[in-house]
């Protein structure tokens, strides 16, 4: 049981970075960034390949840089070339598939055998005993989260938030939306790639299909977290991304253990949950209208 809890926490922390990235692109910039799936694999591929070459720490930074480049391509397509934002992400996502294969030496997966990963390096420092993986994963996520909250309070961070909040205002107040969208997408994809990098070294392997559906899972995490913690301040929002991700991994572990839902169905269940959560304002409006209509009908019936 302890093992299950520990694994759920570890995975929760690592995948929380994707939820954070989606918080930045989807919630703040109001862009559904479809680069996420392949961006995650890109991070894992770069990280594992670099670690295989003997540079497990450098690998993390290289992965983030690669992710930022992917984000830049998506941003370039939509801000300068006039490609609709969803399509821009899908195009980059498709192209990255080949790039990812190339990074892994034209193979669909790479594995680390006896090479060091940042986890083994951290273990050798002797901190945390049996919990070393959780401490390292948690530490990276907490640090990234704190950095993100700090950044969103700076001039550039505030400009990015205003870009997603009110385009009219941005146009009249010396913010260049092309620049802010580009920076925002670079950062969010660097975070996604960081997640892939950490997960890749944790699992000691990268697989070309490991990113499938990660964008929907990330959104599910974000929505679960926001339901639990609310969406008031920036700090709370980032904390919600982490909390949601950990809860999701707990649910995942529980389902895996108890088989309440066959594990093959999990993606479908996740997709339905995300669709319902995002559709809820429209559903509530529709329900309200039906109620009003029914009441009006009843009143008319009485007056006749």
């Amino acid at each position, binding site marked *: 049981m302890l093992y299950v809890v520990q694994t759920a926490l570890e995975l929760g922390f690592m995948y929380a970075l994707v939820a954070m990235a989606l918080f930045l692109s989807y919630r703040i910039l109001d862009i559904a960034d479809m680069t996420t799936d392949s961006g995650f694999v890109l991070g894992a591929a770069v990280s594992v390949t670099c670690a295989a070459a003997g540079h497990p720490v450098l690998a993390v930074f290289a992965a983030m840089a690669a992710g930022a480049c992917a984000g830049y391509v998506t941003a370039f397509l939509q801000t300068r070339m006039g490609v609709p934002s969803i399509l821009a992400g899908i195009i980059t996502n498709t192209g990255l598939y080949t790039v990812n294969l190339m990074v892994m030496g034209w193979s669909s997966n790479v594995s680390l055998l006896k090479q060091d990963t940042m986890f083994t390096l951290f273990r050798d420092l002797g901190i945390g005993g049996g919990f070393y993986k959780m401490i390292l994963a948690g530490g990276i996520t907490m640090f990234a989260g704190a950095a993100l909250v700090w*950044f969103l*309070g*700076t*001039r*550039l961070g*505030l*400009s990015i*938030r*205003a870009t997603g*909040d*009110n385009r*009219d*205002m941005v*146009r*009249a*107040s*010396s*913010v*260049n*939306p092309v620049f802010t969208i580009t920076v925002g997408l670079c950062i969010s994809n660097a975070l996604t790639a960081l997640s892939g990098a950490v997960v890749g070294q944790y699992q000691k392997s990268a697989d070309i299909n490991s990113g499938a559906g990660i964008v929907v899972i990330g959104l599910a995490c974000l929505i679960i977290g926001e339901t639990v913690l609310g969406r008031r301040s920036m700090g709370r929002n980032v904390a919600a991304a982490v909390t949601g991700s950990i809860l999701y991994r707990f649910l995942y572990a529980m389902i895996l253990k108890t088989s309440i839902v066959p594990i093959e169905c999990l993606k479908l269940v996740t997709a339905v949950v995300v669709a319902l959560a995002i559709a809820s304002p429209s559903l509530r409006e529709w329900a309200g209208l039906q109620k009003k209509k029914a009441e009006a009908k009843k009143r008319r019936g009485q007056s006749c």
Partner: protein
Amino acid sequence: MLKLDHIKKTFNPGTVNEKAAIRDLSLHLEPGDFATVIGSNGAGKSTMFAAIAGSFITDSGSITLNGKDITFAPEYQRSRVIGRLFQDPLKGTAPHMTIEENLSLAYLRASRGSIPFSRISKKDKEFFREQLSMLDMGLEDRMKQPVGLLSGGQRQALTLLMATMVPPLLLLLDEHTAALDPATAEKVLELTKKIVAKNHTTCLMVTHNMQQALTMGNRTLMMDDGRIVFDVKGEERSRMTVPDLLEKFRIGAGKELDNDRILLAAED
């Protein structure tokens, strides 16, 4: 200060929707000039503002601000020195960001524009409080609330503060009180007068109130069909009445003034 030299703009050229919004417009504003702009429907008042602010690049002519040619400068660069308020109070603030964050953004951009990671300090927050209390709307005690909770008048007053906290070279007011209720409009107008007078800001203000056009500021411009048809200041202006103004318009434009809102306002 501001010099528009024979600017022209035609929208949708070569199509059935072709519209010459500005035909050969020239204007020279002295530093500290506060000009009111009045004109018929579709006279090109807002288009002139958009041209100055850089929402589009003019077809021909040049625009100079403070000795610098800004004819081809992008909008976001111009807005560093040009403050702009629209009729719609929702256009000037970010609804999901708090009052403090909105002010921080405006303040940091205008005062420390070149440093991307600058943050506001405790002292800046005190300054915001002070500025907000000047509005006399109790906003200084609601700095942590999102702007979306404020009324239209409060949002417009906040926008005015954001645009002028660091005094801009030029302030463009496009009927910024027209969508507010009369009492709030009066208040925002008083604030505008106070702030513009304090900073000696060069200012252009579109209005549909003829009386206001004569009493506010030091200069009145009348526009029709993409041109300035009448420009008055100094003693001649101080002696003018609303009927004089209508007469001048008839002579300048060769027709009666046909702005429904102006005519409605004139009946008050």
